[in-house]
């Protein structure tokens, strides 16, 4: 259970630090007036969306940390047979990196044609990644490595499947952002979606790197 | 105001209840008195807090309740750091006062003394069995995959250490007084928990692991073993007994138990010999084991050999049929006495099991739909098709005659059958039969059993499951 405990320790630590920075030690009865509230932006859409996404990513990190904890625990039992990861996974990883690059470019782009192109590219690379993952599954199944044959297999399918599901969820947001941009909506409004996508894509890339490294090394 | 008085009264009542209620820990039968002491310390500290804080609160309510518009205003006091810190420190000390002894005693529990002898407890749905190391003081290895009808504890036949292990298939185990014992706990199927209230200690059984408790029994007596981890439908019937004996009595009991090697060497029942023995039974039970309602003799054909053997054993030793209201059971005692020994019982049982099942028509009247609902519980042990199951020691019900089923269910309900101390599975059936609250319930379930197919499944016999 160490993986999840590390995550909780970090999360709680960050939370306590944040609370301390936001004056949780203050004596609220000792001050009056609104001036002590130094926040610049109250309930703005962008900051709200970013905060919401931040907490959602905390939830997702919790989910993956827990699975990783379970992985380490299960690995200690003597019926463990490590999976031979298909080489295709390396290619898929490259696709995901390219998708991250594309969306990052998109978020920094000023001119409309660049925004549109990079946004499309991100989606295409991502869809290719999902397809590639599915093909990796097919390869394993045709070699006789089924989900229930071995716990290592089970975790392989579980990790890759769960990650892909989150990617697909992201694609739904990407789709909406794409419609917005291509239907000529104010670029500024669409920018929020693109920024959120960028964060989410980078996050899932890191998650994938961690999972992939874990699968490779055990 | 009333509420403050209520609090004071409730504090008084609670303390009085604690001091005078008859429901408290059972008398200690092991040397875990330190656990009881830790409980007492915890009571002193928490009791003091309970009384002090509640009485203070009651006082506050009485003194500072609103008595009308002229009541003094509340005091404006956002905090009092000194008081709060002082309270924190006192609480921490109180907590430490309870935790420290608790951890010391836990340390004792975790570290088993070297001189403790070992006994293994094996739990399964829904019974307890045991294994003692033999002369070599070593338990042989075991595995769930080795479990079969002849080797219910899954002892490894290739391990020489296991050959002399004593296999106890009854749910009663004996241990000698004043000797520290480590009880190794193993499960064949799901989570269980071995708990004896008088010993104070308990631990879950986890399939795939061996867990343990240890204790030194200090009082002669017989104590209930209860399963305390919900393990399915019949969890509450999973019972056993631990008997704390003097060393002599313990040795005498040990001498009566079979070793693993002996259990493996038991000969199969001989059908031919059994046929000869069966002559006397045929008079009532019929030449082909078809039963005879006029003589109150049930159909025997189609039933499994291990069940017939168990019943004959029970009849012979007065475990079944000795109850004064068991009119027909009493007749079986002299009959069973004719069988000289266990070998004879095995032989005649093997013969009976070889008889082709005689198909009977059920004439039971009852609500079959309701019977089916009721049967969900029974089917868990007896099989959803009523085919019986060796593992749960449940006989085949399908094809049994309605009048016999009815009588046996009533006997279980009334305690005419299943009450004897040495009846291993009777008490379970007693508990289960009490689920049938009325005669209608009994009829409904018997009617449903009457609809179960009689030819689909034969009760599996020892020979078929032995390998």
């Amino acid at each position: 259970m160490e993986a999840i405990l590390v995550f909780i320790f970090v999360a709680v630590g960050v939370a306590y630090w944040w609370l301390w920075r936001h004056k949780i030690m203050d004596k609220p009865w000792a001050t009056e007036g609104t001036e002590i509230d130094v926040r610049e932006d109250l309930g703005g859409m962008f900051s709200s969306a970013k905060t919401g996404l931040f907490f959602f990513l905390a939830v997702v990190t919790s989910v993956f940390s827990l699975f990783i904890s379970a992985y380490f625990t299960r690995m200690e039992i003597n019926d463990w047979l490590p999976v031979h990861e298909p080489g295709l996974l390396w290619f898929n990883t490259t696709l995901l990196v390219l998708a991250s690059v594309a969306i990052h470019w998109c978020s920094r782009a000023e001119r409309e044609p660049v925004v549109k192109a990079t946004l499309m590219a991100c989606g295409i690379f991502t869809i290719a990644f999902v397809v590639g993952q599915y093909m990796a599954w097919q390869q394993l199944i045709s070699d006789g490595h089924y989900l229930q044959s071995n716990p290592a297999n089970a975790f392989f399918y579980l990790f890759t499947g769960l990650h892909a599901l989150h990617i697909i969820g992201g694609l739904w947001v990407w789709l909406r952002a794409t419609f917005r941009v291509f239907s000529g909506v104010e670029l500024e409004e669409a920018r929020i979606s693109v920024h959120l996508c960028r964060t989410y894509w980078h996050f899932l890339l890191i998650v994938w790197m961690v999972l992939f490294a874990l699968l490779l090394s055990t | 105001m009333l509420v403050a008085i209520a609090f004071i009264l409730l504090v008084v009542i609670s303390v009085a209840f604690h001091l005078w209620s008859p429901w408290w820990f059972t008398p200690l039968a092991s040397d875990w008195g330190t656990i009881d002491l830790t409980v007492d310390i915890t009571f002193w500290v928490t009791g003091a807090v309970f009384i002090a804080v509640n009485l203070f609160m009651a006082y506050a309510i009485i003194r500072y309740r609103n008595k009308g518009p002229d009541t003094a205003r509340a005091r404006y006091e956002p905090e009092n750091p000194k008081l709060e810190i002082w309270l924190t420190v006192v609480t921490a000390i109180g907590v430490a006062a309870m935790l420290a002894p608790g951890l010391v005693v836990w340390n004792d529990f975790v570290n088993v003394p070297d001189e403790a002898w070992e006994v293994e407890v094996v739990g399964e749905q829904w019974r307890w069995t045991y294994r003692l190391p033999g002369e070599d003081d070593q338990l042989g290895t075991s595995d769930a995959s080795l479990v079969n009808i002849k080797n219910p504890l899954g002892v490894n036949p290739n391990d020489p250490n296991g050959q002399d292990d004593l296999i106890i298939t009854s749910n009663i185990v004996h241990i000698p007084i004043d000797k520290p014992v480590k009880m190794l706990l193993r499960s064949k199927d799901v989570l269980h928990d071995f708990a004896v209230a008088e010993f104070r200690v308990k631990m879950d059984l986890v399939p795939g692991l061996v867990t343990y408790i240890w204790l030194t029994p200090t009082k002669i007596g017989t104590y209930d073993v209860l399963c305390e981890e919900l393990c399915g439908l019949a969890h509450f019937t999973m019972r056993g007994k631990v008997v704390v004996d003097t060393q002599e009595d313990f040795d005498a009991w040990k001498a009566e138990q079979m070793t693993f090697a002996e259990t493996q060497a038991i000969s199969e029942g001989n059908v031919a010999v059994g046929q000869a023995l069966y002559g006397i039974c045929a008079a009532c039970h019929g030449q082909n084991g078809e039963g005879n309602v006029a003589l109150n003799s049930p159909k025997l054909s189609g039933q499994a050999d291990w069940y017939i053997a168990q019943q004959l054993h029970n009849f012979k030793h007065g475990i079944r049929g000795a109850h004064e209201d068991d009119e027909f059971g009493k007749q079986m005692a002299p009959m069973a006495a004719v069988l000289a020994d266990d070998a004879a019982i095995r032989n005649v049982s093997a013969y009976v099991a070889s008889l082709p099942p005689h198909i009977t028509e059920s004439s039971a009247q009852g609500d079959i739909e309701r019977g089916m609902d009721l049967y969900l519980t029974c089917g868990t042990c007896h099989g959803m098709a009523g085919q019986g199951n060796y593992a749960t020691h449940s006989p085949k019900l399908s094809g049994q005659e309605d009048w016999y089923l009815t009588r046996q269910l009533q006997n279980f309900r009334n305690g005419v059958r299943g009450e004897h101390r040495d009846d291993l599975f009777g008490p379970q059936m007693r508990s289960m039969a009490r689920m049938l609250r009325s005669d209608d319930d009994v009829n409904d379930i018997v009617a449903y059993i009457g609809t179960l197919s009689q030819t689909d499944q034969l009760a599996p016999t020892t020979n078929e499951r032995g390998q």
Partner: protein
Amino acid sequence: MAYVALSDRGQALSHPKSWVTKYVWSQDHKVIAIQYGITAIAVGVVALILSAMMRLQLGFPDSFSIISPSEYYQFVTMHGMIMVIYLLTALFLGGFGNYLIPLMVGARDMVFPYMNMLSYWVYLLSVIILMASFFVPGGPTGAGWTLYPPQAIMFGTPGADWGIIFMLVSLAVFIVAFTMGGLNYVTTVLQARTRGMTLMRMPLSVWGIFTATVLGLLAFPALLVSAIMMMLDRLLGTSFFMPAIVSMGEQTEYGGGSPVLFQHLFWFFGHPEVYIVALPAFGIVSDLLSTHARKNIFGYRMMVWAIVIIGGLSFVVWAHHMYVSGMNPYFGFFFATTTLIIAVPTAIKVYNWVLTLWQGNIHLRVPMLFAIGFIFTFIHGGLTGIFLGNVVVDLPLSDTYFVVAHFHMVMGVSPILVVFGAIYHWYPKMTGRMFNETMGKWHFWLTFLGTYAIYLPMHYLGFLGVPRRYYSYEGIDFIPESALALNTQISTAALFVAVVQILFFVNIIWSLFKGPKADGNPWGATTLEWQTKETPPIHGNWGPELPGVYRWAYDYSVPGAEKDFIPQNVPPAPGETSGT
């Protein structure tokens, strides 16, 4: 680039146009809150009836032909799961959280109103799936609310075929709903507080709900993870939790899995879960006490810190539910220590509640009665927790009625008293009418005394060693007849208390139509929700202009002030000095 604050964008909220969008597909947090509340309470009544059936079996084993052992365990399971998750969690967070947070922090609504609406409908879906498990072949699962494998998915436990699948799916759907709601609650608290509402000016109700939501967002994943792996074990034959098993004499295909791993994951969720229920109750009760005693909550800073510390610590105590699970026994040292440490901030809170009453001006109105009833029962329940937390004392008490009595006191009685107190307290604001005081008092007295009569004696059955989750007790030598008679008395009290709740429903429904009209702030409370112009508040809560916040939430009985309370949105008078 400047972003227009949601709070100042008048047209940002989609105002409902028809009856359906106003009361059904509503994005108004207050409507959603009431939807959550009604659904949670309705399903809670179902669970209450299940417990009545169980108590009938235990108290009168020979008389009632109602339930079989199979049904008994199914009811035990469904009662527990419904009460903990579908009632308490949904009501405190989805119900009270939704209603109170925007009003108490001065926001117009939650920051993601559409997702908030969705969260309710997904919650409702999870309830429907759960209820559907009553109607599938084999009925609902009977594995106990803890759903331990291997038994939960094996023949021998009721519902191992279909019931367990419906349960796990329902839980997964609930977690989705909870996440959607939870993101709303935390983001609204962090982003949408009105000008002047610093964190330390928030009332404790918000702190309690906020912290509980953070706990939930981090802890519910553990339940999701264990549910997914158990589903795979059940449906696809994997062996995450399933070791080699001989089931009813048959070897199974499973092997190598760890049942204890499930327990670690489950309780990693399960322990924070009880604080997810308790922390909102703590926060709310602080506000009830403060308002009705006309006195600031004593030690506000410590109360906030205690909530936050309890929240953090709640993640490192989980294995105190596993002392006898067969886990590495050395873990017992660690978890007993952390568990007893967490008792300290909890005790501080109790002291501070009582010290709030000291030198107060206590109005013993119905909400106040429930609040102090909470203190009494929580002291009891919290103290019995110390017995169980001290690992070696847990040995004789684990899986006995002591545990059942303890968790009902701290999860069943105490939070439910807060729920009642809170509903009565905010009733005039939510409905614009006042409830019937006499009926409310009867409801309090009968419930408070009745529940104590149920659970005080039950602890002693536990000391004796009477095991929990037993359908019947015949044939156990050490259990005397008197204990079985006690079971009968407990059942009688339980049935009585269940029936008494009718008083509550009659009161709140009847008063809805016939209660006297209440003014906007009948209790003279300082917090923002009482300062809305309209009662009940309109969509958008505040009208054209948001309130500003000038002081903390507890300016009661300020020396020199004209009235014995100063609402948070009242600016300081010229020359006014702040308290202490």
